[in-house]
């Protein structure tokens, strides 16, 4: 059996894999399952079938000529909501039969029970109507940044490059229509692919690779390995096996995460342009792909750093200390900070009110630098080992 496959076998231990499976499963449940469940059951989100219907009738953007279609769908959904109201004895007793009457009743009486039933009982199409009305409001709004108001006040804090981009997008939307994806809360997807996935990648890779090279040091294998025919090149094979294992693990994680999220039905909207203020004018599919690539690169960067630390640690307890620190630094802090840069590229100093502009590619530069650091340290270790005394 070749050395490479022997090293792979040393890395993929059943106990470690079981722990990784259990930990990543629990992490998924605590972090992401709620969002996936909401998308699958269409709770607290707009109905995917309604959004798909609008996509087919109006395309990815809704311009002025398509507003009547939007109004028609809103009126239809309000009629459906009226049906739910008719079945609710409390609504009947309060004399509330339509969407508008519910809003007026809640405002005038201060009684929130019907409102809570509509939004939290998960048995009405309340969120669909709410999101459609919100989208319609947004379509009709033409923001005048020079006028006084909260939005204009916030606009003043944005960097000039961001202000220019906002104006460019608004000009484009005025011509082509506003992106339909505004009605779908894509912050779930951002959180899922830009935070949860890289965290899980980093955690799994660190746990898998931490003991990889520590074991050889503990068992004092170096003299035996260096005296073999392979000699000092053994480390190269070990590192290659480590990176290959990390690649496989990252690929498996990504496949599972992506498959689960796409099974909720969001795959119907991958060709829609995203409605947030983004630099590159991407569709949702392109944006998610870029987030997946970033998450994978972060995982591979963590692999390099873990292998480097593992090579220079003599016992498992010390490696566990370093693994926890590495996960906190890369899996938590780095991922959270990178999320700030995506997709618009901005940084807000702690306690400050002004935004500091960062270039649009900053997130890719940061992840690239981390990857270079991890792999660079491993390369340096290989070179250094060639000259080391036993």
């Amino acid at each position, binding site marked *: 059996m070749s050395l490479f496959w022997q090293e792979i076998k040393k890395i993929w231990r059943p106990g470690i894999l079981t722990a990784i499976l259990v930990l990543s499963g629990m992490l998924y449940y605590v972090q992401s399952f709620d969002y996936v469940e909401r998308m699958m059951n269409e709770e607290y989100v707009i109905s995917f079938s309604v959004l798909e219907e609008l996509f087919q009738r109006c395309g990815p953007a809704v311009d002025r000529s398509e507003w009547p279609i939007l109004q028609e769908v809103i009126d239809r959904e309000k009629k459906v909501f009226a049906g739910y109201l008719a079945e609710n004895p409390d609504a009947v007793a309060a004399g509330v039969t339509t969407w508008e009457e519910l809003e007026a009743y809640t405002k005038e009486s201060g009684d929130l029970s019907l409102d809570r039933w509509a939004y939290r009982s998960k048995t009405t199409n309340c969120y669909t109507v709410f999101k459609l009305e919100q989208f319609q409001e947004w379509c009709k709004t033409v923001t005048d940044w020079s006028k006084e108001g909260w939005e204009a006040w916030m606009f003043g804090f944005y960097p000039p490059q961001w202000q220019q981009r906002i104006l460019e997008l608004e000009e484009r939307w005025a011509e082509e229509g506003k992106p339909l994806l505004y009605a779908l809360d894509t912050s779930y997807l951002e959180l899922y692919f830009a935070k949860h996935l890289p965290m899980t990648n980093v955690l799994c890779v660190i746990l898998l690779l*931490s003991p990889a090279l520590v074991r050889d040091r503990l068992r004092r294998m170096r003299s035996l390995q260096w005296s073999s025919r392979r000699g000092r090149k053994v480390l190269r094979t070990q590192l290659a096996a480590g990176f290959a294992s990390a690649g496989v693990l990252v690929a498996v994680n990504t496949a599972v995460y992506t498959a689960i999220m796409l099974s909720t039905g969001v795959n119907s909207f991958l060709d829609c342009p995203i409605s947030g203020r983004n630099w590159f004018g991407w569709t949702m599919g392109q944006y998610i792909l870029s987030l997946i690539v970033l998450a994978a690169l972060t995982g591979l960067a963590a692999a390099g750093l873990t292998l480097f630390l593992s090579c220079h640690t003599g016992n498992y307890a010390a490696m566990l200390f370093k693994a926890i620190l590495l996960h906190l630094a890369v899996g938590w802090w780095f991922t959270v900070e990178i999320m700030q840069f995506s997709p618009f590229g901005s940084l807000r100093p702690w306690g400050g009110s002004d935004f500091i502009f960062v270039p649009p590619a900053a997130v890719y530069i940061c992840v690239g630098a981390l990857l270079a650091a991890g792999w660079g340290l491993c390369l340096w270790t290989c070179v250094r080992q060639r000259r080391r005394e036993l």
Partner: protein
Amino acid sequence: MTLLGYEWRKLARMPVLWAVLALCAIFNCTQMLEIAPYIDLFNEAGEAASQLGQRVDGDFLTGLRQREQTACRDTLLEAVEGMDNVFETLDIQMLSAYYEKYMDSSPLAQSLMAWKYDMAEERAAHLARTGAAMDLYAGPVTTQVHQFLFGNLLLKVLMESAVLGMLSILYLLGYEDIQHTTHAVCATRTGRKLWWPKVLAGVGAAVGLYAVLAGSALAAFFTVWDFSGIWSASVSSQFNCHTDLLIIRPFMTWADFSVAGYLAAVLLLGGVLVIVLALLAAVAGLLVRNVYLAGLVLMVLCTSGYAVGVALAELGWWELFVVFTFNPVLLLLEVNAWFTEVGMNTFIPWQETVGTVGGLALLSGGTALALRRFRRKDVLV
């Protein structure tokens, strides 16, 4: 030098431990930037309390109006002029009904919740009589400062101490394997008994690390935030509240606590909780001979201490959830509301104390059994 001393020396010679300890201490200090915006109002409240006392009455208001007019003083004055004895009108049964409705599938959970809130109602009546709600504490920024100190800073200190303590014990238990001396040591009767001092040294180290982290964090905190006028305040001031399931409620403790007394109680219970988690690591380290696997087992146990609780609540398996809320990880996560009714995650008064002491007894017994098993174990396998 005793065996304990030798074990501590082994731990002291681990450079990464000191590096992590220093990083944790620095990190804890940087956390204070989070509440920096509240310092001016806090200082105003502290100075007013030093001068006029903590109890907000007519004399206090008169004295406050005579203080130098500043924006902070005006904010403080506006806040205290509207004070009333909130415990007189507090509707505890509303809370009870809310949680009972949440757990309507389990009569056991409902009855325990109802009993807890009946006791809380008696406490509310007592606090109404003593007028604890009329204490200033830190005025309008009380909740922010209190929740930062107990729910952020001390929570992080406890978590760091627990992790460092657990890994220290694992290191000591695996030390002989690292040095390849296990077979020589375990071949003798005295050698087999070495694992008792290892566990004791690990537990002692965990407490020591907790003392260092808590000491450094609190020293830095109280250097910047002057609590000299605030120590005698009741933590049940109406300006202090906490939230559970989006419901804000007053900070109603099961016994009368001043700020100083509450801090001491939390630190003491926190120390015991760190010992509990260190003993958990000892059991894992003794049963799972590979240090790395033992570390993974601990990670799984600690993560499941939270995740399983979330799952049980989501699934509505309230009987199991009641039992599960006594686990040390969930207790640790509730440090911001210890010695109060907490909310959904506790079912009896003083649950954090009962759970911690119970955990200590259980895990001490478990450690003793694990050590006994180790004494007869074949270490060649």
